[in-house]
C-alpha cells in the first residue's frame, strides 16, 4: 500500500486527517515556494513534538546568496529529526556533502524529475527519494518505478504548481495601471481556464487550472512508495473527505468515489498529464 504524504494549509489541520495520512511535507519560511503556508523553525520544532508520523521539510526555492546562511542553519537544525529534505536548488546537495548530513534528500526539481536515470544520479548524492514530475504520463511513471533506485513520491491529487517567478507580476500590473492593490486571491482567465496566481515573498507563482484527481490511477500505481496530496485552495473539511475517499478506494467503488471528489470541487478536476503526452517538436 502506498503511503500518503500531504501538505498542510495550517499546521493544526493535521488533526483532522492524521488517521488517513502517513506523513506531511512542510514548507519552511523564507526557503520554500509553492505552498499555501510556510512555517518558522520554532513552529516546526513544536510540531515535531506532537506529530509522530513522517515529516519532510521542503527547502525548494531557488536559493540566492542571501538565503545560504538560513538554509545551512535549517539543514543543521533538523538533520536527523525529519525524514527528508525536498530540494530544488543544488546548494542543498552541496550542503549535504559538506555538512555530512544524515537526513536523506528528496530530489524535487518539480518539472525536471522526468526520468529514472537522473533520479539514480541524485540517489548517489543522498536523494533516497524522488518527487516525480506531474507533467509525465502514467506509463512513464511505471517505467521510472521499474528502474529508479530511489523511493518515489508521485503527485496524485491537487493543484500543480506550473510557474515560479522572481518577479512581482501582480504588483507590477497594479503599479503600471496605477490601481489600488488589495490583498487576496487572484486568478487569471484565458480560454475558459482559471489559473490561480499569487505572490510570495520573492515573486509570483501560478497553479494548474484544475485539480489533479488520480484516484483511479492510485489503484493502478500500487507499487509507488508515496502519493502526494496538495491541499492548496481546499478547506480542511472537504480535504478530509477527499483523502478519505482515496484511502477507501477499491476497484468496486472507485468510480463513485472519484466522482464524489469531482463534485466536491465543483467539477474542476482532471487527469493532468497521466494520459496526455506533451510534445516538443511541432514541425517535421
Amino acid at each position, binding site marked *: 500500500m502506498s503511503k500518503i504524504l500531504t501538505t498542510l494549509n495550517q499546521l493544526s489541520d493535521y488533526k483532522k486527517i492524521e488517521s488517513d495520512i502517513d506523513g506531511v511535507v512542510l514548507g519552511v519560511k523564507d526557503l520554500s515556494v509553492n505552498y499555501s503556508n510556510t512555517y518558522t523553525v520554532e513552529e516546526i520544532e513544536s510540531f515535531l513534538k506532537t506529530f509522530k508520523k513522517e515529516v519532510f521539510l521542503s527547502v525548494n526555492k531557488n536559493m540566492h546568496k542571501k538565503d545560504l546562511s538560513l538554509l545551512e542553519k535549517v539543514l543543521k537544525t533538523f538533520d536527523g529529526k525529519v525524514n527528508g529534505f525536498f530540494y530544488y536548488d543544488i546548494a542543498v546537495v552541496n550542503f549535504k556533502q559538506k555538512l555530512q548530513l544524515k537526513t536523506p534528500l528528496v530530489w524535487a526539481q518539480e518539472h525536471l524529475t522526468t526520468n529514472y536515470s537522473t533520479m539514480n544520479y541524485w540517489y548517489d548524492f543522498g536523494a533516497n527519494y524522488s518527487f516525480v514530475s506531474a507533467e509525465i504520463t502514467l506509463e512513464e511513471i511505471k517505467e521510472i518505478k521499474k528502474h529508479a533506485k530511489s523511493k518515489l513520491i508521485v503527485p496524485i491529487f491537487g493543484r500543480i504548481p506550473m510557474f515560479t517567478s522572481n518577479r512581482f507580476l501582480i504588483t507590477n500590473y497594479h503599479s503600471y495601471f496605477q490601481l489600488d492593490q488589495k490583498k487576496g486571491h487572484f486568478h487569471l482567465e484565458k480560454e475558459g481556464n482559471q*489559473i490561480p496566481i499569487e505572490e510570495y515573498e520573492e515573486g509570483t507563482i501560478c497553479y494548474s487550472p484544475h485539480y489533479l484527481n488520480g484516484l483511479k490511477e492510485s489503484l493502478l500505481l500500487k507499487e509507488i512508495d508515496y502519493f502526494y496530496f496538495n491541499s492548496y485552495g481546499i478547506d480542511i473539511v472537504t480535504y478530509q473527505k477527499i483523502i478519505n475517499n482515496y484511502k477507501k478506494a477499491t476497484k468496486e467503488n472507485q468510480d463513485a468515489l472519484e466522482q464524489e471528489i469531482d463534485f466536491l470541487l465543483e467539477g474542476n478536476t482532471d487527469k493532468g498529464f497521466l494520459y496526455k503526452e506533451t510534445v516538443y517538436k511541432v514541425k517535421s
Partner: protein
Amino acid sequence: MRKPELLAPAGDLERLKWAILYGADAVYIGGPGFGLRANASNFTLDEIKEGVEFAHAKGARVHVTVNMVLHNKELKGLEEYLKKLEEIGVDAIIVSDPTVLKIAHEKTNLEIHISTQQSTLNREAVEFWKSQGATRVVLGREASREEIKDIIDHVDIEVETFIHGAMCASYSGRCVLSNFLTARDSNRGGCAQICRWDFDLYNENKKIITEKPFTFCTKDLSMLSYLPDMIDLGITSFKIEGRMRSLYYIATVVDVYRKAIDSYLKDKKHYKYDQSLETILRNVANRDSVPQFYHGIKDESCQYYNGRVEISNQDFLGIVLSYDIEKKEALIEERNHFEVGDKVEFFGPNKGVKSFEIQEIKDAEGNQIDAAKHAREQVFITVPFELEKNDLMRIKRL
C-alpha cells in the same frame, strides 16, 4: 585579466558564419537532438562539423546545446550522440540534465557547461557542479551583480552570464504554462511562449480588475551600459540570447558588443560609453530592453502591458556580395525594399559605419531601376567608398 568571450547564438550554418565574421569569439548552436529549441532549424551533424571547421579556422569556438530535460525515452541514443559531438570536435556542450553531464564526463572528454535551465544562482550550487566535472556555469538570469561577484570570488570556475536578448518571466525550468495550456513541453524545447499571451486578471470576488490585459511578458535584456563593470567582475563569457533571431540581428548585436568590449579593454581609463551603439541595438530589436536583475530591478519597468509593442524591423536592406573598386559599384542582395534617395549606411566586421544617399540602382542586366523590391534580388548600386563582401546595408537612423 583574461579577455571575456563574446558568445553568440546561431540557428543555422549561415548565422554561425555571420556571428563569427562579425566578431563572436564563440557560438552556441543546437544539434539534431536533445536541445531546447526543437522548432529552430538546428544543425545536422554534418553542418556542425562544417561549422566547427569554419569556427576553428577563424579562432572561434562552438558550443552545442544538449540541454533538454530528458524523459525516459530520450535516454536512448544519448551516449552515441555525445561521442559524435566529441568526434566532430565541438568545444563544449551545454547541459541541463545531470544524466547528460554524467555520461559526457565519464564517456567523453567534452567540456561541460551547466545550462541556465538549472537556474544556478549561488556559490554552493556552482561548487557542486564544478565537483562533477563542469568547467563553466551559465548563471540564471536572476543573478544580481553581488551574486555573480560572490560566485566568482569563491569558486574557481568559468562563469557565463547573459548580456542581451529575451528573458523568461519565470526562473528558467520552472514554467510549464506551455505544457498545461498547449501540451507543448517547455523543458524539452517546445515552449509556446505563453508568457506573451494576454490574460484577464480577476480578484477573489471573481471580478475582473480592469479591462487592461494582464501579461507575464517581460522586456528584453540589454547590459551594454554595464559592460565595463561586468568585464571587471571577471565574468568569463558574455552570452547573447536568440538562436531563432535573424542574420541581421545577430551580426548587428555581435558587432555592437564586440566594439564596446574592445573599446573598453583597449583603454579603460579613457573609455566613454558610446550612446550610438545603444541606438543601434534599439533599432535592431523588436522589443524594448532594460538591464533587469543585475541591480535587482524587477518592477513594472521590466514588463510589457497594453498589448505587445513588438515592431517588425525592416532596417536591414541588403548584403554586400562584392565591390568593384574601378566602377565604385557594389553588388547587393536585397533583404528589404530600398530605393533611389534612401539614406543608408554600411557596417562590417572590425570597421566603422559609413553612410551615403543612394543615387542609382541597376538590375542584374545593368538597367536603371527606381527601387529594389524583390526579396534576395541582386542589384548594383554606386557607392563612393570601398566596401567588402559581407558588409551589411541598413537604413540610416542616427
